[in-house]
């Protein structure tokens, strides 16, 4: 794996700077030499057919994956060497909600709150905001996809990240859950958090987000 020279200075304006990022799964590249720049506070929508590399790109920015070649920085922190700092400030929402079935919604949230040293009060607030206060004491095993995604949104609220990464966040959701997600996105935009959303559906068009099109692992337009 190539190592790039360290990002010289904290580039305060840039939320994401990717240079030549390539990611291989086995022999085939999911991402090929992607360059991308996103400013802080910007809202970006990733468009493209299945297999274009949108999910992979989001996961690399979130540091769930490492680039095979290339590198860059997220919120001023180097992708190769400062991953925990990036993780402290980003949240990734996908259709996999990363919840524990046998724990209640509240317990799932409290787990992260405790791990990250966040006061318990925030958990209650978050549950209120996603309208889950009543169901908070039930095990996630009982929840529908929409309710699980609400918990994930609540977790995001608890984590209070500078940047939100969303991968097809409204697929398969009922109206109530979709509304909650869209609300979160709009609130985040209003609070000047950076947003990167991969989606097929038009989502929060009032955002006026920049569109980045991808195909076959490359960025076609809008980088």
């Amino acid at each position, binding site marked *: 794996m190539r190592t790039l020279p360290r990002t010289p200075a904290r580039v305060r304006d840039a939320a994401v700077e990717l240079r030549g990022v390539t990611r291989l799964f086995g022999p085939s590249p999911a991402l090929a030499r992607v360059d991308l720049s996103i400013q802080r506070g910007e809202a970006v929508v990733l468009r493209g057919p299945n297999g274009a590399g949108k999910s992979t790109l989001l996961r690399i920015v*979130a*540091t*769930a*994956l*490492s680039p095979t070649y290339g590198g860059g920085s997220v919120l001023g922190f180097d992708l190769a060497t400062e*991953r*925990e*700092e990036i*993780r*402290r400030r*980003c949240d*990734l929402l*996908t259709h*996999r*909600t*990363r*919840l*524990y*079935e*046998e*724990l209640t919604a509240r*317990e799932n949230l409290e*787990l*992260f709150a*405790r*791990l*990250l*040293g966040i006061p318990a009060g925030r958990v209650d607030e978050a549950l209120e905001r996603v309208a889950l206060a009543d169901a908070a004491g039930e*095990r996630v095993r009982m929840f529908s996809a929409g309710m*699980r995604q609400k918990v994930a949104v609540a977790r995001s609220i608890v984590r209070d990240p500078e940047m939100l990464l969303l991968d097809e966040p409204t697929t398969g959701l009922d109206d109530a859950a979709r509304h909650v997600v869209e609300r979160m996105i709009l609130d985040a935009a209003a609070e000047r958090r950076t947003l990167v959303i991969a989606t097929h559906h038009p989502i929060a068009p009032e955002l006026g987000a920049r569109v980045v099109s991808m195909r076959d692992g490359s960025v076609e337009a809008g980088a």
Partner: protein
Amino acid sequence: MTVLGQASVIARKDLVIEVRGRHALGTLLPFAATVLIAFGFAFGPGRDVLDRVAPGLLWMAVLFSTVIASRRAYQVETEDGALEGLLLAPIDKAAVFLGKAAAVTLELLALVLAVLVLVVLLFDLPVASPLLMIAAFVLGVVGLAAVGSLFGVVAESARTREAIFPMLVLPLVAPVLIAGVRATDLAAAGRSSDVLSWLGLLAAFDVVFLSVGVLVFGYLLED
């Protein structure tokens, strides 16, 4: 929050899930009992042989149960990609290792207690030095849990073949098996001074593997 604090949060989470899912009770205990009875058929019915091999059978049952318990510890995490949630949390990844090892240790100790009762009944195992015997089990189980929790990450990966996990773990824990059985045998007979050197070996194994595990676990988690 300190690493140990984070580890105990994770251990607590694992134990809560264990208790609610009743996996240990439902699967591990019957499994261990089956193994013991099978050994009984294989080596019996002559009491003299069975009595001589009782400590060994006990530890074999514990060893096999470790494989199952460690895999289970990580199966929980694959439910909805929860392991990625731990990866993306800005916590020390060593805490995940220590937390999981602690949870597996406690589950196995509960199992050992039950199995010990079974073995005393089935094979008439004497318990002349109960404290030393308990010490042997505690130290041994910690070592087994450490190795299992380290490589459990590898076991749950998509393309892993079934047999890889036991194949990795069993040769590595050979010292635990040897020392554990010897110590149990000697403690059963009440030869306290001899037990101590075997306990020392177990303790050394634990220290080495916990330390190495803390150092390398993060590498196993990252992708």
